[in-house]
């Protein structure tokens, strides 16, 4: 691999043994994946933050980095952590778990993490063509597919190391030639104008597209330009759940879509997604029984989403036996707080929770048995990672409507 003088200097250990090792990891991974040089990055986004996932080994590693005195060289954000101090019907998590999760957070803040969210694009929106080292699949897909920035779908430790050296390997989705679509996906008619135009349907559509695309970057026709931000996020999170993709080119939305004309697209393998496929999936995961908990915010909600949700809640007060968690980042919550809206949610019995991810939280330990959500991604992971027994899908507006009309 070609290295600049400064990179050679870091590799030779002039800035310490740990940084040399950090750069060696990036160089080696790059070499195996066919990169021939490194590229400076403007933003690192670190995954592997929940103590439930990384365990003592991850905690030790992150603390070692912090205690070595190493700090992020570029703007750095991190994924959300596991819920800690939240009570659920009187249950709370063991003290040891909370203490260790707090140690991970403290070390990451010391290193330079500026926010804990899975939607770092609301903290600092990447520009077109910018090089990043991001982990977290939905964020990677958003950065590449919506912003036109460049990042691979990196692993947790690699992004942490990239933040310390301010570089990553120039390979994969950093390169023009590896960003070309290889499959054409046609959504049978514009979803807009049908009854399939909500965040649940788009999450499922994304999930199905990820499944049929495999490792081929898809070019998607049929997603309306004016899709809501909430639905777009759920769509990309769905793609990331069922595939290893880091980029999907959406006609009318992705900056790169205009590079490909019909002549090019007609040469690609073509797959149709029928509305019935979406309906069938939703039907299979319909909520039939009342849940203990409703979760929205996988990925984290934006300010506008929360304002829209507040409208759906109107003046209703929710039944006491169901918890509603709306998840976002501190940045968004503080904005709501200063405009007086957090109080509005509180008054209606709805919790706005920040910086956490329920999917990577030990919800089973909290006694949560049945969860309803509007996220296809959360549907998948809540049962697998958080060990929740039953998970079902229902859009937020519909859930509130049911609660208010029928009680629970």
């Amino acid at each position: 691999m070609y290295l600049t003088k400064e990179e050679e200097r870091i590799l030779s250990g002039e800035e310490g043994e740990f940084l040399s090792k950090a750069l060696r990891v990036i160089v080696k991974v790059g070499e195996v994946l066919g990169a021939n040089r490194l590229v400076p990055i403007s933003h690192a986004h670190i995954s592997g933050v929940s103590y439930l996932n990384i365990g003592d080994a991850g905690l030790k590693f992150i603390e070692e980095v912090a205690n070595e005195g190493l700090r992020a060289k570029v703007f750095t954000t991190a994924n959300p952590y596991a819920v800690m101090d939240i009570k659920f019907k009187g249950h709370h998590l063991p003290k040891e778990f909370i203490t260790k999760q707090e140690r991970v957070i403290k070390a990451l803040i010391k290193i330079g993490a500026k926010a804990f969210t899975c939607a770092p694009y609301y903290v600092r929106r990447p520009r077109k063509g910018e090089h990043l080292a991001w982990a977290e699949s939905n964020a990677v897909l958003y950065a590449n597919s919506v912003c036109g920035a460049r990042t691979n779908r990196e692993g947790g430790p690699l992004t942490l190391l990239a933040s310390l050296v301010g570089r990553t390997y120039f390979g994969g989705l950093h390169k023009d030639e590896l960003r070309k679509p290889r499959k054409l996906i046609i959504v049978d008619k514009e979803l807009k104008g049908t009854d399939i135009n909500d965040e649940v349907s788009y999450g499922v559509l994304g999930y199905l597209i990820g499944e049929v695309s495999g490792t081929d970057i898809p070019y998607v026709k049929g997603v309306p330009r004016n899709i809501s931000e909430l639905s777009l996020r759920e769509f990309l999170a769905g793609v990331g759940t069922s595939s290893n993709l880091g980029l999907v080119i959406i006609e009318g939305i992705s900056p790169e879509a205009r590079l490909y004309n019909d002549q090019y697209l007609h040469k690609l393998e073509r797959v149709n997604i029928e509305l019935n496929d979406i309906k069938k999936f939703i039907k299979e995961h319909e909520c039939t029984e009342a849940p203990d908990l409703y979760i929205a915010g996988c990925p984290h909600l934006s300010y506008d989403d929360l304002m829209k949700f507040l409208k759906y809640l109107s003046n209703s007060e929710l039944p006491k036996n169901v918890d509603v968690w709306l998840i976002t980042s501190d940045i968004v919550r503080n904005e709501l707080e200063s405009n007086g809206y957090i109080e509005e949610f509180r008054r209606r019995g709805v919790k706005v929770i920040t910086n956490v991810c329920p999917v990577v939280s030990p919800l089973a330990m909290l006694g949560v048995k049945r969860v309803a959500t509007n996220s296809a991604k959360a549907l998948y992971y809540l049962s697998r990672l958080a060990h929740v027994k039953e998970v079902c899908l229902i859009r937020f507006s519909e859930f509130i409507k049911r609660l208010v009309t029928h009680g629970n």
Partner: protein
Amino acid sequence: MVIKYRVRTIVEGDVEGKGLVINQAVSLLGDLDPKNGVLLGKYFVKDLILFIPYGKGSTVGSYVIYGLKKYSNPPKAIVMSRADAVTITGCILADIPLFDGLPIEFFKKERMIERVRIKDNICEVFE
């Protein structure tokens, strides 16, 4: 019988010892318990040369390999058909020699191997 394979060295090291061949992709997070050094609930990996076809699943897996070292349960080396970013990252951080390039047929049968020697991109298997 000795069979020689050409491998690619990703993390350097000359190693020799007993081998363990796993016949399926391994999700480091979930399949490998770093604290006790137990793989798939039944194999102790400490001091073995571990043959895994390829990795799968969570990117948190790098921390699991790092954990093996921290809990003093590291294998002598890991040899794969195709190395992935998660395993490479873990092996460099933990200083565990890593090689890849073995044909996938090698991993057909789960088994112990009496003696393995790896040096200068050559992996010698005595079985």
